């Protein structure tokens, strides 16, 4: 149809029609846009309305709460001071419960039973904490714990858990504290005295068997000593058996030193023993 019109002599009409169509399209678009804008404006107004409503309601709620509080406070001045005393008492007890863990064994009642926290320490250094969560019904059993697997937890539980929970906790605490102490000594040794140690320190998970070589200097010559520390008592952080040996061709004076060292390791913490070696050597070298 349009082709015909184009070919006809009435090109002007065709042009006019085209313009008309364009104008119609533009008008439709404008109409649509206007509708959209109106819709937006309406929605914005609605949002404003709703938020105004919500603010009013919130203000109402706040006011009511304030009134209630004032009422409560005003109702009885005596009550409010008694209340203050009670609050102070509660705060005090909460504070005590919070620091009770410094005693080493603390507990908290839970939905299922009691959760005990055993904190370990060695000679004024606090070390890791371990937890044991006990169920109390139908019988006392361990629900969850963070005790390392090489601590004989099941054995200790079998012996004491059913009969005497206090004893169970104290035995477990002894094991954990001793382990923490042995581990601390071994770690300190490797950290601070690595220059005196030859090779690696052979340890095991419980830190109850340590074997290593260390250097001893006498008369400006160094000799290797081999030491084997066996901690027979798992609740103790000092060894039960010490074997210090030197090479067979070493001078006799060293044998005495080995015996002295052996005795020292049995009595004194490992890293402290090594500290005394270095200070003894200094005094020896310093002597004229």
């Amino acid at each position, binding site marked *: 149809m349009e082709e015909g019109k184009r070919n006809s002599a009435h090109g002007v009409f065709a042009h006019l029609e085209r313009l008309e169509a364009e104008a119609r399209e533009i008008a439709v678009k404008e109409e649509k846009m206007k509708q959209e804008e109106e819709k937006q404006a309406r929605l914005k107004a609605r949002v404003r309305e709703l938020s105004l409503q919500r603010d009013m309601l919130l203000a109402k709620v706040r006011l009511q709460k304030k009134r209630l509080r004032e009422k409560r406070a005003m109702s009885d001045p005596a009550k409010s001071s008694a209340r203050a005393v009670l609050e102070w008492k509660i705060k005090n007890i909460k504070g005590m419960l919070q620091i009770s863990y410094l005693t080493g064994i603390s507990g908290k009642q839970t939905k299922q039973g009691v959760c005990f926290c055993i904190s370990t320490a060695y000679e004024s250094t606090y070390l890791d904490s371990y937890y044991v969560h006990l169920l109390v019904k139908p019988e006392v059993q361990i629900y969850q714990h963070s005790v390392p697997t090489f601590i004989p937890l099941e054995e200790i539980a079998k012996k004491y858990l059913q009969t005497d929970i206090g004893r169970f906790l104290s035995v477990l605490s002894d094991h954990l504290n001793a382990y923490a102490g042995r581990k601390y000594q071994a770690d300190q040794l490797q950290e601070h005295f690595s220059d005196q140690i030859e090779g690696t320190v052979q340890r095991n998970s419980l830190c109850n068997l340590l074997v290593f070589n260390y250097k001893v200097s006498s008369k400006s010559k160094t000799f290797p000593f081999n030491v084997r520390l*066996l901690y027979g008592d798992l609740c103790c952080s000092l060894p039960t058996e010490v074997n210090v040996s030197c090479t067979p061709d070493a001078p006799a004076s060293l044998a005495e030193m080995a015996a002295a060292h052996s005795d020292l390791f049995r009595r004194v913490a490992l890293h402290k023993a090594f500290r005394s070696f270095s200070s003894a050597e200094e005094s020896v070298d310093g002597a004229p």
Partner: protein
Amino acid sequence: MDETVAEYIRRTVLKIPRDEIKTMLEKWGLLSETQLQTINFRQIKESISQDVVQLCEENSVDIKQAAVLDIIYNHVYPNKRVWCVYQMKKTGEEAEFFDLTDFKKKFKGRLRSALKNVTINFREYEDNAIWIRIAWGTPYTKPNQYKPSYVVYHSQTPYVFISASVLKSNLPLLCQALVLASNYHDIREMELRSHSLNSLKDIVFKRYSQNFQTHYPRPLQERNVAPKSADLRIIQENRNEKERIERVNREVFGDGPQPKLEFAQYKLETMFKSDPQMDVLDKKEPFRCLVKFSSPHLLESLKSLAPAGMADAPISPLLTCIPQKARNYFKIREKKHFFPESFVSP
């Protein structure tokens, strides 16, 4: 040096990423400083491995020494293998003193008495882990160095981690040797498997963060601090619910990172519960079904389900008990207090 040893060394070096080769060779310690300096570590791996083999020829490296390089590689990249956890049991009080030399002697002795052709290597690491590499042969063939089994054992613990690429027929012998050497009397496989060896250790040694209730404030209070830089026009109407979900989630999963597991598998042998009018199954038989959850990091994704709004908090205990029960393979049978429905619903 034997052809097979040369080939084995060449292939082992090729496995290592190029940037790591120098450090691993240094750890291996079989080539001297001067020898290492002659290798150009910037050339392609093929050439590097040829150079290494050449130098090993000069040092006459044998297969046992070459195997140590394999252990070093696997210790740095343990996640390329799938590890299974085994638990050993002992009868009564056993000697608490673990003697490493005694352990090695008994282990080697047991294996060698049954099988002449094995290559056994031990390597101890700082965290008390003993790595054992065993290459298996038969009475008539030399050990296959390309399919070794790996065992990781921490002294004085009842757990052993075995890498599952073991030729199944040798597994009973391996278990026997382990039990004998460590003074236990029985061993069983736990339903716990993963690629991440450290995560398996975290689960059985209880090194992951569990949430225990205490009275004293925990040092990690940072979680209360930064509210997300909020657009002030957005108001959380649901704040209480959101906080409840986060609190419950924290109680179940704890604060720290979760151990890394790749899947959890549940074998259902429960009855199909349908509308009785529908009468779907006319035979009252258990509906056998296997549900497998997989993820690059399963426990972290479970932890983020409730905060993301994709599941109700608290999440089903069947999913959250995985680290505590130390298993990721479950069999669910019809029991009064199991709720299969809560596990199926999203």
